[in-house]
């Protein structure tokens, strides 16, 4: 067992474990932390695959920013796992959903195996060595600023829109707006009554 | 410039819509004035078309034929003959009057209202000028949307029900029509090797009898709903009662004519065998519509629904005239389309005026109006007389010719249709009596003001038209006649009929077995011009 294989299996086990725990624990804080674990393991895999830059980005952006944001929200809303989440699903429905997931997994494996059906060595075969700079900041940067310049710029716009959107959505409405909305609702209700009569 | 006049005419209202979009929505006066100017200029353009129209030439005039979507043979093909010419002029006139009539009665959503009306105008003119089935279908559907909003937004209490009913009825028919159109186009492709949506090209295509029958049925259903032919008429009273005045005027004045226009432009020329075969059924339905509409109109409590049912009756006359398949019947039918547009439009305008004052249309609420509003009563009387077809008003000319034609076709159609003349007098005069005559019993009616200058301006052109067409309809006949003769010639391609070249009368040829065999006309798309002559 080479080091490579060991790193893969350890990371894979950690990633799957984190993901599984994330969806099973009741406390949201714990969920976030398990996801963090899973992401960290995945970042290791990224780097193992030569995506040094992306692995780092994953850690910084996902773990450092997004998951922290999740944590913020969970704490802001003061969620502790004791919230009313309604009736738990019936066992049958729960089971059927696991079954669906399993089916999906089996199919995905078959897809991978199918495409690996024999001929495509790039998938089934061992990965060969790559150039030193593969996946480096420079390498990815060159690509993003040349071939994918427009999509890249568009992501900027997307982020801007997301920022504005998030602010607008999360903003507390002023009293005036609330009053207006109330009035509007009343009018609607009134006119719909008329329609009925 | 002149060659493209139909394009200008059709799309000028759209230009108006664009301009209207630029006006802030609070500026009601600017919006109203602007849309009035646009409608007025459109009317002037249509007058110009009328003036430039050559009454002696047969065939289409002002034709424009530009390939549009070549791969499927869609072209931008416009052109008019005498029938569409008159209907266009009617449309533009009624649009101006409709805009004037809503001057003070539409207070909410003013901008949207006038945009709808102008879009509607484009749709209506578009239907009348299209010579391409695709274009025809597009304009046909374009009309639907503004009308839906006119009824559904600015209508009465049950406006949503009425609007949806209107749209669903019409949609149902037009989808069948679309299927039929596509069938025609593919059929043409299989015969000529190219696609074409061109009406004139499709007309010359030979179709077997069963094909004709199905296609005729599909088109006829779409058109019959629009007319509306009994028993597909029930959307009409609801739509009329709920629609705002301008909507009713355009609906009754022009939209109903779309159905009959479709018959005369598409059904009759394209499916002559089927036309002859279906003739008895449609005639019977028309006669039922005439009598039924009149009888039901008699017992209505709401003035607008009375007028709506009278429309059913009058449009029954138009349908009967179309399917008499003789010159008098067809000419009378086209005249009746115009006349019905004028007199029913005028009736709705008048009802709108009284509605603006009293906010009710129930006959029982009125009485003695002639005393407080003498001018109104006079105009109402003139329009009433025109509606019941008194000689020397426009209504008579069309009705007389239709009855004459129907009588020649089949005595019994004539006899039963004539009773419509009697009943029309009954319901109109009874309504007039209950609204106008007697003493003022309702205190709310005591202080009604007589017609304003604006309202008089609306009515005067209509009254003028009523008498002009009633006394001197010759200019109209001159323009209708070549077009009608063309239609008859095309119908005469049916093997079961024979056209008298002098009187233009179609007579049924009785073959031994009484069955109509499939058409075996040789088909030569290149020589379609030749087959027209």
């Amino acid at each position: 067992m080479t080091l490579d294989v060991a790193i893969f299996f350890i990371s894979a086990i950690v990633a799957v474990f984190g993901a599984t725990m994330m969806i099973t624990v009741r406390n949201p804080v714990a969920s976030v932390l398990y996801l963090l674990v899973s992401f960290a393991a995945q970042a290791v895999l990224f780097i193992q695959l030569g995506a040094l830059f992306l692995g780092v980005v994953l850690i910084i952006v996902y773990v450092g920013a997004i998951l922290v944001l999740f944590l913020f929200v969970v704490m802001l809303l003061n969620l502790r796992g004791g919230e009313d989440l309604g009736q738990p699903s019936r066992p049958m429905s729960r089971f059927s959903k696991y079954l669906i997931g399993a089916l999906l997994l089996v199919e995905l494996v078959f897809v991978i195996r199918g495409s690996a059906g024999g001929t495509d060595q790039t998938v089934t075969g061992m990965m060969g060595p790559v150039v030193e700079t593969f996946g480096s900041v420079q390498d990815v940067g060159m690509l993003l600023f040349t071939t994918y310049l427009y999509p890249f710029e568009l992501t900027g716009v997307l982020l801007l829109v997301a920022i504005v959107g998030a602010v607008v959505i999360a903003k507390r409405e002023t009293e005036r707006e609330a009053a207006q909305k109330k009035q509007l609702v009343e009018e609607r209700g009134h006119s719909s009554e008329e329609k009925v009569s | 410039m002149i060659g493209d006049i139909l394009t200008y005419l059709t799309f000028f209202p759209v230009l108006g819509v664009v301009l209207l979009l630029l006006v802030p929505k609070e500026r009601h006066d600017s919006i109203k004035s602007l849309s009035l100017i646009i409608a007025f200029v459109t009317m002037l353009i249509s007058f110009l078309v009328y003036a430039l129209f050559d009454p002696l030439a047969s065939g289409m005039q002002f034709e424009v034929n530009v390939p549009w979507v070549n791969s499927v043979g869609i072209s931008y093909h416009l052109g008019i003959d005498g029938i569409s010419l008159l209907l266009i002029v009617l449309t533009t006139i009624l649009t101006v009057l409709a805009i004037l009539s809503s001057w003070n009665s539409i207070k909410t959503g003013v901008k949207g209202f006038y945009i709808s009306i102008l879009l509607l105008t484009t749709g209506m003119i578009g239907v009348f000028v299209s010579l391409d089935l695709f274009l025809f279908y597009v304009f046909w559907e374009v009309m639907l949307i503004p009308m839906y909003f006119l009824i559904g937004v600015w209508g009465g209490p049950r406006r949503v029900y009425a609007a949806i009913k209107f749209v669903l009825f019409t949609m149902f028919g037009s989808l069948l029509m679309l299927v039929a159109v596509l069938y025609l186009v593919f059929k043409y492709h299989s015969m000529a090797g190219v696609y074409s949506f061109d009406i004139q090209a499709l007309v010359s295509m030979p179709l077997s009898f069963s094909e004709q029958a199905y296609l005729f049925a599909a088109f006829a259903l779409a058109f019959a709903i629009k007319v509306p032919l009994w028993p597909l008429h029930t959307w009409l009273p609801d739509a009329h009662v709920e629609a705002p005045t301008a909507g009713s005027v355009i609906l009754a004045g022009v939209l109903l004519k779309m159905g009959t226009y479709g018959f005369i432009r598409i059904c009759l020329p394209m499916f002559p065998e089927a036309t002859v075969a279906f003739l008895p059924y449609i005639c019977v339905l028309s006669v039922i519509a005439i009598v039924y509409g009149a009888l039901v109109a008699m017992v209505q409590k709401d003035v607008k629904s009375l007028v709506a049912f009278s429309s059913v009756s009058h449009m029954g006359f138009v349908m009967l005239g179309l399917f008499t398949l003789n010159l008098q019947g067809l000419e009378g039918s086209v005249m009746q389309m115009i006349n019905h547009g004028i007199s029913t439009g005028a009736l709705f305008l008048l009802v709108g005026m009284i509605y603006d004052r009293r906010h009710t249309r129930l006959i029982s609420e009125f009485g003695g109006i002639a005393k407080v509003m003498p001018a109104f009563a006079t105009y109402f009387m003139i329009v009433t007389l025109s509606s019941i077809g008194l000689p020397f008003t426009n209504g008579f000319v069309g009705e007389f010719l239709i009855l004459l034609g129907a009588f020649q076709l089949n005595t019994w159609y004539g006899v039963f249709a004539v009773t419509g003349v009697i009943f029309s007098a009954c319901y109109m005069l009874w309504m007039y009596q209950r609204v106008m005559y007697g003493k003022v019993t309702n205190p709310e009616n005591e202080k009604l003001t007589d017609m304003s200058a604006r309202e008089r301006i609306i009515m005067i052109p209509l009254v003028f038209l009523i008498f002009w067409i009633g006394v001197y309809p010759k200019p109209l006949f001159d323009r209708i006649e070549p077009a009608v003769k063309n239609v008859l010639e095309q119908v005469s391609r049916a093997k079961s009929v024979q056209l008298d070249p002098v009187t233009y009368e179609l007579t049924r040829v009785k073959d031994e077995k009484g069955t109509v065999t499939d058409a075996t006309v040789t088909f030569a798309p290149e020589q379609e011009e030749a087959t027209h002559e």
Partner: protein
Amino acid sequence: MAEYIYLVPLFPLIGFLINGLLLGRLPRAAVNFIACASVGLSFIVAVMLFFDLRALPEGQRVLEQVLFTWIPSGALQVNIGFLLDPLSAVMILVVTGVGFLIHIYSTGYMSHDPGFGRYFTYLNLFTFSMLVLVLADSFPFMFVGWEGVGLCSYLLIGFWFEKKSASDAGKKAFIVNRIGDAGFLLGMFIIFWQVGSLQFTEVMAAAPAVFAAGGALVTTVCILLFVGATGKSAQIPLYVWLPDAMEGPTPVSALIHAATMVTAGVYMLARSSVLYTMAPDALAVVAIIGAATALFAATIGTAQNDIKRVLAYSTVSQLGYMFLACGVAAFTAGIFHLMTHAFFKALLFLAAGSVIHGMSDIQDMRQMGGLKKYMPITFITMLLATLAIAGIPGFSGFFSKDEILWKSFSSSHGHILLWIIGFITAGLTAFYMFRLIYMTFYGKERMSDEVKHHLHESPRSMTLPLVVLAVLSVIGGWVGIPHVFGVTNHFEHWLAPVIAGPHQEAASHALAAAGSSAATEFLLMGLTVVLVLFSIFGAYMLYKKRPELSTSLAQKFSGLQALLVNKYYVDEIYGALVVRPIVTGSVFLWKIVDVLFIDGLINGFAAIYADISQVARRVQTGRIRSYATVFVLGVVAMVGYFLYW
């Protein structure tokens, strides 16, 4: 000459336009002047045209003028064109002449009514329409006038529209007329269908070639045209509107419902005489209906108490006479009676109007009496008219009525029964007319003091037309003194070129049998005169000498009395048999067929869709997880599909 014909209807049209467009803006005097002058001018033109026509040689007395094409549609070419021949010449003289007098009379009669402008507008429009009717050169153009007079009749009957009875009566008149018009239209259609033209000259010329004499087609045409005539001229079964029409102002009753419009049917029959002589069956129908109407209306007339209603039923009855004449192919006699009737009946109505005017709008004869000394001119003129209508020898009515009776007996289409009915009717006519005279002008003054106080003779503008008409009523018949008196019948001679019929053969026939028939004619004439005198005496006994006798008689025959007073309950029967079922049926069509059935069917379909959607929409739970489940299932299915198929 011919190019002036259009002036005759044009003047009233101009009057109508001026008065109508400037309604409410002209002073009373101007309105009166314009209205009268326009009719007066057309009377002058009519007289000139009459003399022009007379100056022409006998065979060529036809003037035609075409203004422009009205309805050009293939083979159907209808012109706005006029046809002046001896028949229409007589008619325009009557219409403009009597019309002019009535216009003048109206200026006095309507002098206190605020609606005078509207009144004269309608009246001028009526005159125009009537002139179009009689001058038209084709059936459709005649129909213009035909419906036009119907419209004016509607407007004028309902002139005081605030009264429900008035507007009801107007509506009834129009609708009943429309029923007749429908028949007229159908008749026209058959003619066009067969002949291919609707011009009078062409139709009449082509008819003998196109129609088989006595055939079903021509009979149908004639009967349909006659249906039109029954509507306009108030014959059984469509007479019901005329008595109600008395709701209108009295001059209107005189002009429209006595002198001119109601006689349009007779004119139309005379105009189509070529067709009618070809259809003996149709003639028989006309004669029977005419005779029946004459008798029927006369009996009702004997029991009415409203002065105008008596005259109305009298009009119906006299119109029956005219149709009786037409029905025995004696169109000339019909037109002759039409003319004399126009004089004396217009006079009767105008005089009655004068009475009503003086009586402060009371029309019930039971509240009158003894008016002779208050209204001498009215009395004398009305008496002259009554003598005329009763058929006292020498007066105009005598000649015309006698000719009808004689023709109904002697004509090849006549029958002894028709004569008997006419004979009885003559007696009844004399009876109810003198009943009217005695109840109104003689006996006790039964009016209230208030009314009596205002009682006065009418102004000059009203009495002058009375006098002129009285003169005409007396001498008007002298133009048509029958052959039997040894003079030429100018009137018959004048009309001969236009009127088809057996007159040529009848003339020779009559000459052949001159010896015996002259004696018969005198015998019948004498019988009639005796009956008339006897009836007058009866009326004198019952209503002048011993009024209590009439009341006791009425009590004795109370059933009959009630039947007559209620006009045989015809209105009620029509209401129950025609009007009610139509209205109920219409409500049924609306509520049941339209709303319940058709709309129910369509809304039912919509409801079915709605119900299906009610079930289907449950799929749309709003729960993201269920959507996601379905979504993932879909993905699984799709991937599975691509993997294994």
